[in-house]
């Protein structure tokens, strides 16, 4: 599963880790994150993420 980078602050969403602090289980793909999920670091919305090259 692809990692995604926040274009605002540089945080990397790694599906293998998920975002447990915000109720996202490890193994959740970026696509399957809820639409209202935001960057845990800077609060940017999903559309501000890009797939990691």
């Amino acid at each position, binding site marked *: 599963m692809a990692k995604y980078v926040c274009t605002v*602050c540089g945080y990397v969403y790694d599906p293998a880790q998920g975002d447990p602090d915000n109720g996202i289980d490890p193994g959740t793909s970026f696509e399957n994150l809820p639409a209202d999920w935001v960057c845990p670091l800077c*609060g*940017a919305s999903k559309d501000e993420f890009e797939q990691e090259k």
Partner: protein
Amino acid sequence: MKPIQIAEKIFDVGVTDWNIRDFHGYSTEQGSTYNAFLILDEKIALIDTVKKEYADQLLNHISQIVDPARIDYVISNHTEMDHTGALAQVMQAVGPDTPLVCSKMGHKNLSAHFRNAWNYQTVQSKDTLSLGSRTLSFLETRMLHWPDSMFTYLAEDKILFSSDAFGQHYAGPEKYDDVMGEAVMPHARKYFANILLPYSDLILKLIEQVGQMGLEIRMICPDHGVIWRREPEKIIEAYGRWSRQIPEKKALVVYDTMWHSTEKMAEAIVDGFIEAGVRARPIHIRSSHRSDIMTELMDARALVVGSPTLNNGLFPTVSDFLTYMKGLRPKNKIGAAFGSYGWSGEAVKLVNRELEDAKIQLVDSGLKIAYVPGPEQLEQCVDFGKKIAAAVLAD
């Protein structure tokens, strides 16, 4: 500096750093100030502190108004150490159990700076804190310019304590925008170009959000430089304009040089721009500061970068500029590379790569000239300038 009363029972208790000239790589020719604000009401609140080495001075300023032990709330709008360095000493003086009010990210970041078990009280946007006859409210401004950043707003007095936003690195006798006049704007602009530029899109959203909230602002108190009291809307409007990054028909030719060959090229390229009717100037990197180059670049459409090839690579100062520029993520730029070389000439290719990485659209594959440019090669440089000028004018 002595504490200054900025409104009824509200004081700037901050300090002036007259001598700082290098603020983490940003040139501060006229020093800076670290502003901190004390609000006296039924409860007493301190908003932000100062750099560590100024802790005594801050506490002295507070003591001239009120015993620090009487402070009921310490509010940290931003974790960076020019505003929290004095926190340990301040918390000791006000009492370590005093609520330390900050955003959720502020809590996280302060905990990574200080290991003290302070009485953190986290707030989020729209939360309020009553001081008695006055009420503070908070607005999280994540990544403006750290994850922890927030604004504190005092509704009754219509004062926005804006942390680093709207600040300027400037130390002087003036404390207000109306006293300083137009001279404040270049400092505010340089601050924006070097600190806030990467977050332009967030700033536009924030300005919209503040508009929707109907927040009335009579005074903006940033943590650096002068307070905006005559026309706070002027600096908000400027932030909107700077954030949109709509370039002017202007080009910068930024270069370094070993034996004046890349310099000759730079000046000929500038001639080409000027002949074509585009405002341009050469900027020799070692004669300028990277933070001033960024300020110049903010409203330019074209960035042309020249580097000699040194030991098969970029000239080190060119790398410095490119690294700094890339991090600040300027938008809506076109660019090209040039440089003189001796035998291998990798620099142009390497500059191209950096410009592409910075999402600057290349309008030419670049111009490299072996050793010293003669009249014919200089003519090539003029034409190179004209070609990029045509792209600037084509917008």
